[in-house]
C-alpha cells in the first residue's frame, strides 16, 4: 500500500489517533508529551503512531494535512490540530466532549 493510502486508512479506521514523537509512555518531545497528557486525561482509548519510527509517514503526512509539525491529532477522520489547540480545547472542556463523542459513535457502529 502506498504511504498516503496507509495514512488515510489509519485516520479513517481510528476514531481518535495521535501522530506523535515517541510513545504515550515515553514521549520524545515536550509538545507530544503535553498532548498525550491531555488525551489520557480524557479517559478514553486512542491510537497513536510514533513518527520517529515511521519517517515516510512523517514526511507524507505533513503534505497530506497541510500541517508541517507534530503532534497532529485526528478525530473521526478530521485534523483537530497540534499541541496548542489540543491544550486549549482540553482547558475549555471541548476536547473531553469531542473524544467521548467520537469513541461513543465508534462503539455503537
Amino acid at each position, binding site marked *: 500500500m502506498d504511504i498516503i493510502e496507509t495514512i488515510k486508512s489509519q485516520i479513517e479506521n481510528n476514531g481518535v489517533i495521535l501522530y506523535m*514523537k*515517541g510513545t504515550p509512555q515515553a*514521549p*520524545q*518531545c*515536550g*509538545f*507530544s*508529551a*503535553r498532548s498525550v497528557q491531555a488525551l489520557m486525561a480524557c479517559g478514553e482509548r486512542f491510537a497513536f503512531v510514533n513518527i520517529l519510527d515511521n519517517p515516510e509517514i512523517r514526511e507524507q503526512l505533513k503534505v497530506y494535512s*497541510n*500541517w*508541517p*509539525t507534530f503532534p497532529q491529532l485526528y478525530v473521526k477522520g478530521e*485534523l*483537530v*490540530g*497540534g*499541541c*496548542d*489547540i489540543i*491544550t*486549549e*480545547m482540553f482547558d475549555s472542556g471541548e476536547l473531553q466532549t469531542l473524544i467521548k463523542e467520537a469513541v461513543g459513535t465508534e462503539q455503537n457502529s
Partner: protein
Amino acid sequence: MVIQKSIEKALSDAFDIGYMAVENESHMHSVPPNSETHFKVTLVTDEFVGQRQVARHQKIYKALAEQMRNGVHALALHTYTVEEWQQAGKVPSSPNCMGGSKKQ
C-alpha cells in the same frame, strides 16, 4: 535574528495584524546556542473571526511555508481575534524539550 525577522515580515505581509509577538524559544531545546529553530507566535487579527483554530494555524503555516522548510522545527501558535485577545489575558507557555541532550 534572520529567521525571526523573516517570520515577522511574512506574517505582516500575509495578515492585517492587530498584535503580533514572535519569540525565539530555541534555547529551551537541544540545539546549539543562538539557533533559530523553535518559535512561539502570538497573532491577533480579525481575519480569524468565525474560523476554527485548525484553519487559523493552517493559514499561518501557509504564510510561513518557506521558513518551515528551511530550518524552523517547531512553531507554537496562539491565535486570537481582537475580541478574543481582549478576553484572553495571558498567552500559555510552551513546554520544555524532552528529546536529545535535554532529555530527563
